[in-house]
């Protein structure tokens, strides 16, 4: 056991191997804070405690120089002990992954070790933040390790797959490159395995550090520090016109540089971002009309559900920015399980005990209205801007159904005019926003220029609780 109370000795004069786990641990942790908690041996895994932006953290790193980082019982044991330490200290744990998976030569013993590692990761789920930074290939069990954690960050050389290209070729005959099988494109855009893909290794470390800070150094909401801005400034004039929601999110949070968007390219019709408001970590969930018109679909509902549950488990309040036309219709969606996967979002919000505040900016319709943290699901506060529509569907769409026969008899040339007239009548009848306030599904109509302080005040006033559940990788 190597353990020192002073700063680690200067590295040997010859250039350090960048794959050396000690180099990686030292790089990741704050300068001079590293304390090894496992032996530097042939186990293929090295663990340390230290600080990350001042937060006490447990970190482990695979050693790809030894059997490609493959893990036997000893290597898995190092991880299990690191988890026990992190659980005892109530500190976040970070894995720096670069491993071919279980050690074949060790047989079932290594599989058993892997299983014990998965078990403690699951036991820790929702209790302490778990972050994975994948720096090289992470295959087999070394793929499922990161996948069980809360956040997976993929560096430029990172690869994640159950089996590599050679096995795929010999078993299925598919010719595929490693990057296409398990790089940033498949996992960032298609599978949702990776939360954040980075262009450089340094950025991967930095995102990992940022996640430690956001999840474990959440800060306290200082409402007096929250400056109001006109949040509607970035919206298009036409209510029909789609827009990118990112500028709105940037205006809601304190500092967009301090934010991490999770799954930016996967299921982009919903945006999930961790950032700070009034100095306190918050989770922002926003429909993005630029993609799929902002519709919820099977994948985006699932993405948002996992985010809600992670934030709830770690006591991170939620801000839900709603502009949603509905669930995406279609055969593809039904067959993709939009009912089952959409139900996850209902479950996640209804279960969450963290402060969760909804803002309807333009519209919220139908089933998606319910799913986006509605009053009925237990929202802490529901705000709406003065021009927002809260309805079962758009007025024109509604009259097309309600007055189908009458419209069919109208001269096609006049149909649009009649539709619009009926829609106006329908809007009055349905009651719109005043009616939504009257029946209590919207608590308050607020101006875009006072929204930031309203959100912050609502969060600060709510009991600060956290959900007692794990964060299953939904």
């Amino acid at each position, binding site marked *: 056991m190597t353990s020192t109370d002073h700063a680690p000795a200067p590295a040997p004069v010859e250039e350090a191997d960048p794959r050396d786990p000690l180099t990686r641990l030292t790089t990741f942790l704050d300068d001079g804070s590293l304390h090894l908690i496992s032996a530097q041996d042939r186990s293929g895994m090295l663990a340390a405690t230290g600080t990350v932006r001042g937060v006490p953290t447990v970190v482990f790193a695979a050693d790809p120089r030894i059997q490609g980082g493959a893990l036997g019982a000893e290597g898995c044991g190092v991880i299990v002990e690191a988890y026990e330490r992190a659980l005892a200290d109530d500190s976040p744990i970070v894995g720096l992954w670069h491993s071919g998976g279980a050690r074949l030569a060790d047989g079932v013993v290594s599989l058993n070790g892997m299983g014990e590692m998965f078990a403690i990761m699951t036991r820790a789920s929702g209790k302490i933040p778990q972050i994975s930074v994948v720096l090289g290939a992470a295959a087999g069990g070394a793929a499922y390790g990161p996948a069980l954690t809360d956040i997976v960050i993929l560096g430029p050389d990172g690869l994640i797959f159950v089996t590599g290209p050679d096995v795929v070729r010999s078993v299925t005959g598919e010719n595929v490159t490693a990057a296409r099988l398990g790089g940033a494109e498949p996992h960032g855009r298609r599978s949702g395995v990776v939360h954040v893909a980075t262009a450089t290794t340094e950025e991967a470390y930095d995102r990992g550090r940022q996640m430690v800070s956001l999840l474990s150094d959440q800060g306290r909401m200082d409402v007096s520090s929250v400056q109001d801005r006109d949040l509607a400034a970035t919206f298009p004039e*036409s209510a*029909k*016109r*789609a827009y990118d929601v990112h500028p709105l999110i940037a205006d809601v949070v304190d500092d967009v540089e301090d934010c991490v968007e999770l799954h930016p390219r996967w299921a982009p*019709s919903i945006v999930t971002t961790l950032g700070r408001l009034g100095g306190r970590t918050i989770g922002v969930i926003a429909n993005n*009309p*630029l*993609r*799929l*018109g*902002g*519709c919820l679909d099977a994948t985006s509902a699932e993405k948002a559900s996992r985010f809600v549950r992670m934030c709830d488990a770690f006591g991170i309040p939620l801000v839900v920015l709603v502009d949603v*036309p*509905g669930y*995406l219709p*279609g055969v*593809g969606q039904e067959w993709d399980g939009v009912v089952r996967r959409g139900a996850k979002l209902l479950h996640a919000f209804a279960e969450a005990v963290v402060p969760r505040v909804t803002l309807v900016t333009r519209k919220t319709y139908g089933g998606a209205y319910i799913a986006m943290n509605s009053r009925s699901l237990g929202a802490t506060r529901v705000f709406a801007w003065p021009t927002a529509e809260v309805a079962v569907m*758009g007025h*024109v*769409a509604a009259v097309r159904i309600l007055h189908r026969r009458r419209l069919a008899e109208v001269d096609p040339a006049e149909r649009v005019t009649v539709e619009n007239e009926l829609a106006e009548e329908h809007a009055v009848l349905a009651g719109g926003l005043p009616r939504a306030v009257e029946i209590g599904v919207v608590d308050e109509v607020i101006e875009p220029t006072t929204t930031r302080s309203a959100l912050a005040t609502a969060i600060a006033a709510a009991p600060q609780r956290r959900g007692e559940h794990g964060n299953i990788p939904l």
Partner: protein
Amino acid sequence: MAIQEVVSDLVANVAQVQVEVGEHVEIGHELVLLESMKMEIPVLSEVAGTVAAVRVSPGDVVQEGEILVVLS
């Protein structure tokens, strides 16, 4: 020269085509305006490049995954 095929995210009507073959576009340039879900949804370029082909015209109905514009 890399080719980028810009596809539709969803079933939609093509309302407007805002680029011509040979035109240079920057990131964020509006290529096509789609109508779907009662909304006007602009399709923006994710890369800078030259329009190599336009595969749709106003009034067309496009399916999810259908190519709208090819950039090079």
